[in-house]
């Protein structure tokens, strides 16, 4: 399966990255990791790239890593639809101090606009 993982610099992106690389190692998906600018993320692009490379090496997974410019949600949907991906994977949101699940703006946009199947990692 051709999988596009979109990550910004937030904690839920990091969890999605770990889970997806793990799954790719098990089932051998064709994985592309797209790094986007998430203004609410705590990590820089460089930090994200370094973490992606480190995880891929650790698990011996081969994946394409790309940096996406522009509006993250639309850039991810565009890429997923135009390059024939089967699935678009994103972080599944953060939890509030109360423990409520809160979906980020990027995930909201992707859920409402993507014609490609979307997976939110919890």
């Amino acid at each position, binding site marked *: 399966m051709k999988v596009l993982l979109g990550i910004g610099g937030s904690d839920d992106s990091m969890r999605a990255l770990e889970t997806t690389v793990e799954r790719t190692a098990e089932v051998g998906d064709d994985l592309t990791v797209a790094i986007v600018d998430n203004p609410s993320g705590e990590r820089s692009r460089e930090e994200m790239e370094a973490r992606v490379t480190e995880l891929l090496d650790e698990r011996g997974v081969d994946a394409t890593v790309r940096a996406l410019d522009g509006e993250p949600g639309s850039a991810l949907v565009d890429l997923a639809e135009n390059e024939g991906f089967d699935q678009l994977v994103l972080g599944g949101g953060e939890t509030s101090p109360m*423990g409520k699940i809160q*979906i980020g703006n990027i995930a909201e946009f992707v859920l409402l606009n993507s014609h490609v199947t979307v997976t939110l990692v919890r």
Partner: protein
Amino acid sequence: MSDRTFSDAVADPYDAPPLSFTDKEDRTIEVRAHDGSDEEQEALVEMYDAFDPSDRAQGIPPGREDRIRDWLENILDEDCLNVIAWDGDEVAGHATLVPDGDAYELAIFVHQTYQRAGIGTRLIKALLGYGRVSGIEKVWLTVERWNRAAVGLYQTVGFETSDAESFELEMTIRLAEPPDEEGG
């Protein structure tokens, strides 16, 4: 998450618990602050364990007893404020304020057996009264926009919508004037 807007106006001062009233089903309901005891915590676990999953809000209460216990452990912490509505020794509802920077996040749950009896309004007012006497200045919450009963309840007690751009609405209320050093 930190740039929420709060009204400049202070909301109505509600009475702090303990208080008691007769609900629309003629049940005597007592509202008290959580006393920190294991007995009360167990009564809450029982209420949430029997909670209808269709009344969950953004993943809470969780749906398994061990997760309910983890979640309660977190929100019954001593820096949180908790009030419980009791029908005898059974929990009818529970409302909580959890610290989040200089504000508090609010949530309220009324067990299905006790809904539409006026308990939610009394319970949330008691929690806000408790918050006010405890020196809490600002409270926020999120609510799914389709949940009209809840949105109506929050508006009734003085919450105003502060962010309507996400799946869920964010609402805020001010319980006290900002301290002078904020220059407000």
